[in-house]
């Protein structure tokens, strides 16, 4: 699933997370975020979850008050992209326990850490929820100690 970017934004268009998997200038990033929020928030309620923007496929899904929006190459499998978004939501939910937008706002760095264990370079790196959760737990534990122990 070659993702170009993943954005999380609220119903009011406030950005809550932005992950870019290709090098994009700062100005261009701002423009893409603007375009995505405008397009997605402008969709009629019962539309399908897919859009076209330039040469990319845009897949988005609303979870509670947050929109999860990603940009994919044109040949990608949109239905699987929905599963990827869903898996990320499940991971957040497991970590925060009944995740809501406020969790993402106040603990944005955790949201990124989880994302970085799930996707790397725009591709899925781990398909087991349990393995992933264990890695995050272990990493969090490492933060507690003052000096990093040897793991071997």
């Amino acid at each position: 699933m070659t993702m170009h970017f993943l954005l999380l934004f609220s119903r009011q268009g406030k950005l809550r997370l932005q992950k870019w998997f290709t090098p994009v200038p700062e100005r261009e990033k701002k423009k893409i975020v603007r375009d995505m929020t405008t397009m997605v928030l402008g969709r009629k309620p019962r539309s399908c979850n897919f859009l076209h923007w330039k040469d990319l496929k845009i897949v988005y899904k609303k979870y509670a008050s947050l929109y999860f929006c990603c940009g994919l190459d044109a040949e990608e499998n949109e239905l699987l992209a929905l599963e990827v978004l869903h898996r990320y939501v499940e991971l957040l939910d497991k970590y925060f326990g009944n995740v809501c937008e406020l969790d993402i706002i106040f603990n944005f760095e955790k949201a990124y850490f989880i994302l970085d264990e799930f996707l790397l370079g725009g591709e899925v790196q781990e398909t087991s929820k349990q393995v992933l959760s264990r890695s995050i737990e272990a990493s969090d534990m490492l933060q507690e100690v003052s000096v990093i122990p040897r793991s071997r």
Partner: protein
Amino acid sequence: PVPSLHQGHLELIRTIRTARTQAEEREMIQKECAAIRSSFREEDNTYRCRNVAKLLYMHMLGYPAHFGQLECLKLIASQKFTDKRIGYLGAMLLLDERQDVHLLMTNCIKNDLNHSTQYVQGLALCTLGCMGSSEMCRDLAGEVEKLLKTSNSYLRKKAALCAVHVIRKVPELMEMFLPATKNLLSEKNHGVLHTSVVLLTEMCERSPDMLLHFRKLVPQLVRILKNLIMSGYSPEHDVSGISDPFLQVRILRLLRILGRSDDDSSEAMNDILAQVATNTETSKNVGNAILYETVLTIMDIKSESGLRVLAINILGRFLLNNDKNIRYVALTSLLKTVQTDHNAVQRHRSTIVDCLKDLDVSIKRRAMELSFALVNGNNIRGMMKELLYFLDSCDPEFKADCASGVFLAAEKYAPSKRWHIDTIMRVLTTAGSYVRDDSVPNLIQLITNSVEMHAYTVQRLYKALLDDISQQPLVQVSSWCIGEYGDLLVSGQCEEEEPIQVTEDEVLDVLEGLLVSNLSTPVTRGYSLTAIMKLSTRFSSVNRIKKVVSIYGSSIDVELQQRAVEYNALFKKYDHMRPALLERMPIMEKTASNGPTEIVQTNGETEPSVPDTKHPPLVTQPANQVTARSHDISVFTIDGSFFVTDDVFKNGLKIEFTFERANPNPNIAVITIHATNTTEDDMTEFVFQAAVPKTFQLQLLSPSSNIVPALNHGSVTQVIRVLNPQKQQLRMRVKLTYTHKGSPVQDLAEVNNFPPQSWQ
């Protein structure tokens, strides 16, 4: 409350969120940034981490944070894991390869790739794989390659994706990862398997050699996929009863790439594809995601026809799914396959047409495109009914494309002239303001050439004008028609329907009404004025027309004024020319787009698919001698291949045709021409050209040379391959050009009597 420097970023976020206006927020942020900047200047290690975290939050709100870039580097270099975590995150958010600063990361990343703790190594791999520039990738590729061979699955899976990134940035480095791929697929760990498949896919897509090398993995991939499907419930990887759908899809995609254009590989995966296609649970999106990928794979590899039909039927079922995402995906896929598997897609036509009524805009658009692709001579009436209904009710954004599509389809497959005109009328009256500008001249040409329908057409268009003069294309076409055929209108000659009773004055009222209406564009006014003028040779009320024309001689509109002045002049000084100038337009020639196979329409019928040999070809004639002749052919069969001679004697040039059937495709005839020259002078710059009727396809290979030597001292040979899927009588138009004795020569010939054995 003033945000404290020593507070964590949580407190800052809470504070900023209390701001009631943008201005208040900006003020808070500016204060905080100033405090953070001074803290950075003081090189305070203790608070660096939380300050960068605060900065990252403010960056997300849209405020500049570039002054934190170097701080991220310092955090990365720290030995505290918390620092590294935030440091790498900050690097990924604030730095990119455009800044020189990012190169400073290289050494840190290199050290961390070799760190004793896997989670630190993981951070480094993740950062490199996400934003590593080409230089960084070059420097660190060796480290990544090492980690790709580790037995630690946590690191191996990340190294694989990092390698993918390195290859994307520096393709030449791909080779160095080849040895490490040796046992990747023997892994049991799904994370490693998944990322390995991604890596293999990337390599195969980039290099044909790699693709050949990895083809041998097909059996192994098939086995892994089979295990995933057949194995029981696996809690770790289960998604709604399906085991690791992410891995399944990636394997299916890799199989697609490996099976493409390779019969053996395609055969080896045939069974597993059929199995996945029939056994995957379709009640949830996840199962359909797998089916979708399976369909894409089946359609792309060299699958047997049964499997292809299965795939298209899956798409057909998708069309009936309640989930609109599934319907959308089905339409998109069917659009891709409609050219190659036309008949199979036709079977789902009625479902596709139903999707025109879908509420979702994206689905409607795809359904419209697909519907047009499915229109043919057999279903034109039914399909056009649906498409015209769609045109009536669809959103404005569709109307232009739909109207164009209707015109195109009508032109290709209209079952009758009357039907064609009626269809055009329908489009003009319901979507008249959305049709493209070039439709007007195209329609005028069509109407001109439909001679027997003139009376009917002008009557219908006149009636349409009485209803509505707001749609400019309609008004323009109508004006033009009334100008041309107004005489038929007033004489009530219509046969197709009840002739209308209308007087010359009433017609002129309508046209003059267009001139004064502010709904009319300048272009439309031009049409009306010209139409009025033309009626001066068709109507008897010439004086009225003279009056109108003279009034517009002083029109503010320059175009209108010019026309009026010229028409006035026509009345006053050139009245003897007026009848000739304004007479009925002749049948218009369609511009020949591909040379001699297009034929002049002399009777308004739509183009025949085989050129009519009674008509002369549309070729530009050079000054020199040109002839068109038909030739008889005598047939010999020698040694099983078809051997035919035909002699084209023209100034001593002789052309022989020989035939054979292509192997293995029996639809292709391979014809070789042999040109010889009996004269005493060489024929130089010799070019042989051929054209065949529309149902054939022709490929001319390179000639052996351009010189036909004198006195039969050699020949020019050239191979022609003709594809004849419909097994029609082969006909060919031949054009020869060459230079002989210093003068250019051109010869045209038609060859109509190819023996049946050559094309059956």
